[in-house]
């Protein structure tokens, strides 16, 4: 569908995303109670970066908004509307988007919140991409009968996974004594090498068997996809003793990979049959090289669709979590936490409209781009 409307909406979406990206990257320079640059008797200072303040500056370059997202303005506490008269001292900037219950500037909060949102989307999608591509590509590439290994290497592999997990799990119990750690590692390695040597001699362990990688991975994908993600994120995030945004990003990333894996798998199944992969195999290229150098670039187009939708859904999830106030620190400011302030006072419409509209714009832009890419693919 190549209409003018869709063209406009794609362009608008790209502009929205660039706008939010700029807000996210330069957030501390756009809204801060410190100056970006100032000059006093000691010379030039960069208060936003260094944190030190200028006494009696000769000149100073102030940020666009002179409020920090966590700064409290007690004069304007208790939900001051952006449209009414605000209790401002001479020289004080207006609260362009109003304030919340304890007098924090909503506009500054919004700028910081876009940073949080972009960080959540990017971080969780990086994690999801790593897992999703690994599982989707290898599963589809090797299929159910391509990857055959000897029983010996399967045994040794399982054994080393076991020993590795054991060491990592009980790492604290070895850390008191460094030589012991080293010695244990050495002994484990030697044991593995020895076991390998013994198994090599035994005939039954030299037999090869086919690993049904695709079946294993696709049932794995299916199980993970059937889990109600929002429910699980809520529970898992609350298990951390210390609330932090990074936990939320990690958990969302760990639960949002199946759609990426599915798209990657479907595309890989198509590509696998094509001549250039066959040719690459025929000249003796290694599997890893084929996957990374030849399959990965071709798979990326459909994967981008999944990433775009995943990006927006992780932003939605994070804002829902901060709306509920679960798993995130109490002083955390994001679109969701701003919106939850509105529940304390229904008359504060600016706390409902602005953050909600910002989430909507971000999500809508991301979804439009994803949709656009998938249409381009269909046409091809």
């Amino acid at each position: 569908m190549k209409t003018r409307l869709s063209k406009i909406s794609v362009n608008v979406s790209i502009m929205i995303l660039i706008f939010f990206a700029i807000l996210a990257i330069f957030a501390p320079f756009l809204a801060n109670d410190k100056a970006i640059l100032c000059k006093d008797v000691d010379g030039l200072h960069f208060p936003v970066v260094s944190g030190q303040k200028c006494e009696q500056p000769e000149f100073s370059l102030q940020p666009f908004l002179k409020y920090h997202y966590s700064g409290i303005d007690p004069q304007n506490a208790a939900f001051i509307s952006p449209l009414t008269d605000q209790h401002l001292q001479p020289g004080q900037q207006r609260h362009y988007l109003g304030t919340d219950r304890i007098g924090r500037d909503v506009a500054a909060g919004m700028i910081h919140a876009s940073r949080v949102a972009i960080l959540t989307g990017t971080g969780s999608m990086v994690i999801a991409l790593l897992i999703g591509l690994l599982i989707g590509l290898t599963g589809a590439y090797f299929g159910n009968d391509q990857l055959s290994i000897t029983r010996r290497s399967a045994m040794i592999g399982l054994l080393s996974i076991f020993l590795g997990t054991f060491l990592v799990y009980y790492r604290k119990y070895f850390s008191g004594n460094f030589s012991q750690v080293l010695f244990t590692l050495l002994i484990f390695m030697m044991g593995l090498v020895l076991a390998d040597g013994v198994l090599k001699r035994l005939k039954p362990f030299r037999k090869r068997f086919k690993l049904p990688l695709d079946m294993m991975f696709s049932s794995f994908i299916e199980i993970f996809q059937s889990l109600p993600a929002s429910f699980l994120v809520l529970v898992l995030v609350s298990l951390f003793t210390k609330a932090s945004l990074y936990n939320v990003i990690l958990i969302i990333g760990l639960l949002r990979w199946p759609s990426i894996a599915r798209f990657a798998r479907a595309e890989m199944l198509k590509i696998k049959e094509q001549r250039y992969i066959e040719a690459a195999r025929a000249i003796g290229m290694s599997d890893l090289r084929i996957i990374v150098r030849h399959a990965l670039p071709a798979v990326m187009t459909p994967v981008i669709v999944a990433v775009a939708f995943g990006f927006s859904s992780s932003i939605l999830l994070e804002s829902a979590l901060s709306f509920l106030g679960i798993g995130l620190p109490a002083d955390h400011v994001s679109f969701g936490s701003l919106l939850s302030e509105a529940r304390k006072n229904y008359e504060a419409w600016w706390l409902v409209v602005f953050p909600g509209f910002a989430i909507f714009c971000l999500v809508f832009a991301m979804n439009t781009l994803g949709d656009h890419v998938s249409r381009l693919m269909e046409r091809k």
Partner: protein
Amino acid sequence: MTSFVLKKALLIIPSLVALSVIVFFLSKIAPGDQVQMFMAVRGSQTDRLSYHQQQKVYSEVYEELGLNKALFYISIKPAYFPDTLYKVIPASKKNVMKAWLRHDQDWEWIQLVFENHEALIGAADFFNDPELAFILTQIKTIHATADLQKARQLAIDLKNSTENNAVNVPHKTRELLSNYFINFLHDQKKTQRITSVFPTLHWHGLNNQYHQWLSKAIRLDFGISLTDGQPVSKKISMAFIWTLSYVIFAYLLSLFLAISLGLYTAYHQNKWQDKLISTSGFVLYAVPLFWLGTLAIVFLTTDIYGKWLHIFPDIGVGSAYESMIWIEKLGEGLPHLILPALLLGMHGAASAIRLVRNTAIVELKADYIVTARAKGISESRMVFRHLLPNTLLPITTALIGGFPGALAGSVVIEVIFNIPGMGRLLFDSIRQMDWPVVFAMVMLLGVFTFIIYLLGDILYARINPKIKYQSA
């Protein structure tokens, strides 16, 4: 067909076992002291008791909850690790012991020191001597210090001060005290063998926490809630009724909207109807549910922005009293559930419309549609007899699989609309660290999801002739 169903059902069993193990171990890493909360909910008063008696009450509850049992059937630990550490009560003592063990790897010495410590406390409770009590608080601090180096230093300081001041303590206790210091401070140079860190396997038998939890969970007994002492299953079943009562409506609404609008837009592909509906669905899909809910509450359930907009009743579930039976409560609450159900249904439909539309567009180009049209079949018959079944077939599992998600994903809606359903219960339980309720819900929802998916697969197999022929 039967073999297909059987195969699918058998595949669920390992998934369920894995689910139960994961849920169990997650419940074990949850923060907070369950024993303390359990004591609080039972109303045990421990403030006036002495330290020793407090410990005793604590230990009793600890044992009653079965926390002094092994976690699982087997455990794999470094060889120097005692296989009876799990029996130690309370958890704080266990943690100090573990930390010391980490440092010294000498379990016998730790046991000896802790035994001496207990004996001293017992004697002190007996004599009730203030000077002795002071020393004992010092010793308690030593035994609460995880860092063994620091604990040793504290012990040396204490020993010096008692010797210099010649504290006047009863003879028997003095003996215990000197014995304690000798044992604590004696310079043991036990050489560690390298085999002491090798992994060893312990078998704990059936009398373990997982087995106990699972055998109760199968009978739907998840213990009591740590906030109000009610049985967990009772709390969940009441919340389930509330959630089910509006989620079913929302789910059916979203199915109806998705299928009808999806087919309609596919049929009118690229015409203005399609563009209007698809775009608005796309827009709605990008609206966060909690924003939609908050907007709806602010504008539609209050008088703040005009009386004429106050269409729906207030949030909450009306005046449902505790004494009412559930059917009465539902009758009282249902009018309040209309708005949340509408929102949830519309929001759910927004994404499903695209799915139906895209599938239907592919089907519309298929040969059988062309043939049917060429034979002069009426358009409505073509849509309902040919297009509809063939469109729904590939997306049956996806549509049915949305139901557990809808059941679980209602957290936000229930919190903002103040409905005492599953989502609200989960939210409250998480905030109050009422873990038995949380993990019972995770477990039940997991089982429910698997069952729904199995049903979806069976349904798919029943209506899909391809599978019928394959297995026949």
